[in-house]
């Protein structure tokens, strides 16, 4: 019986984890597609310029340099995004790892930036005063943060921010997600899977709100050195 429950849980973790990866991949590949599309248009612009040259116009070195700079900026943007996606993918390598929570969350929020911008919301991360190293399942922890942000995103007031604050409290790392809501918190999903995942990494959570603000707090134990 217990092994049946375990198997079902594993299947649920796998299924939901795939959903998390899918959401991140869809958003990032959409952005990569835009970057490649921009490079494609900029190359076309160079070609347009070359064609006008043959018709007797003179392209200045400045014009060419300006377009080339714009291409470099897009390739740099694309390379950063690919590097971030690769870092994210490697969080699946270990079921338990020691890592700097700021680095992991900063990378996740950068990958989620577009998802939030589509809702006209900005994600802001506050750097902790000191380095916080946690030992837990890194992929599950990121999935929890993703789910918690994704859950509040549709109820967040447009043109505002969702602030993620990392801090240390006694022997816990504390992740706080704060936002101004738009009065539609009744639309929040019950978060059953989110709670299950939090208990899976031995974390504790607290959720609260008033007429203006919504607050989600997650505590993860810091390992003894």
């Amino acid at each position: 019986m217990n092994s049946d429950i375990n198997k079902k849980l594993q299947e649920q973790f796998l299924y939901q984890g795939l959903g998390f990866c899918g959401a991140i991949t869809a958003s990032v590949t959409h952005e990569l597609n835009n970057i490649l599309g921009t490079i494609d248009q900029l190359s076309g612009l160079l070609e347009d310029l070359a064609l006008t040259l043959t018709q007797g116009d003179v392209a200045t070195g400045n014009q060419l340099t300006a377009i080339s700079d714009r291409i470099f900026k897009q390739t740099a943007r694309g390379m950063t995004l690919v590097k971030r996606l690769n870092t994210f993918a490697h969080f699946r390598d270990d079921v338990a790892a020691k890592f700097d929570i700021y680095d992991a969350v900063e990378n996740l929020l950068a990958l989620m930036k577009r998802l939030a911008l589509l809702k006209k919301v900005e994600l802001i991360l506050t750097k902790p005063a000191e380095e916080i190293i946690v030992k837990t399942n890194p992929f599950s922890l990121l999935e929890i943060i993703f789910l918690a942000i994704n859950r509040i995103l549709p109820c967040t007031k447009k043109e505002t921010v969702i602030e993620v604050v990392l801090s240390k409290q006694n022997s816990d790392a504390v992740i706080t997600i704060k936002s101004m809501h738009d009065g539609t918190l009744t639309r929040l999903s019950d978060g059953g899977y989110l709670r299950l995942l939090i208990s899976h990494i031995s974390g504790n959570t607290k959720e609260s709100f008033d007429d203006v603000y919504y607050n989600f707090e997650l505590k993860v134990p810091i390992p003894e050195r």
Partner: protein
Amino acid sequence: MNNFHVLFVDDEEELVSTLVERLEYRGIIADYATNGDKALEKLHHEKYDIIVIDLKLPGLSGEELIHLVNKSYPNLPVLMITGHGSGKDGSFEKPNGVYELLQKPINISLLIKKMKEAIVANELGYQ
């Protein structure tokens, strides 16, 4: 027939501004907005012959914008562009009120051809 006025709506500013530059090389008067609200503001002040809308927009979505444009400017033909791949062939169903749905990356010759077709179809009352 390149003397028409087009408004692009896409939040990818470098992409859309480059497209506008390239169209201007071809004698087409082009303008852009990076979200739905800015597009509606431009439509209020300028007269356009066609509007090209990206499906994924921040705030007001592409589909919501198309609905508003169809309602307020029923004689303005609409093309839609998307980088969204759904279905086996990467196709996405064309919403109502859209003359043609184009996939990113955009081929400029195809884009111009479709814009001309949409304008002519609209003038003939086929849209």
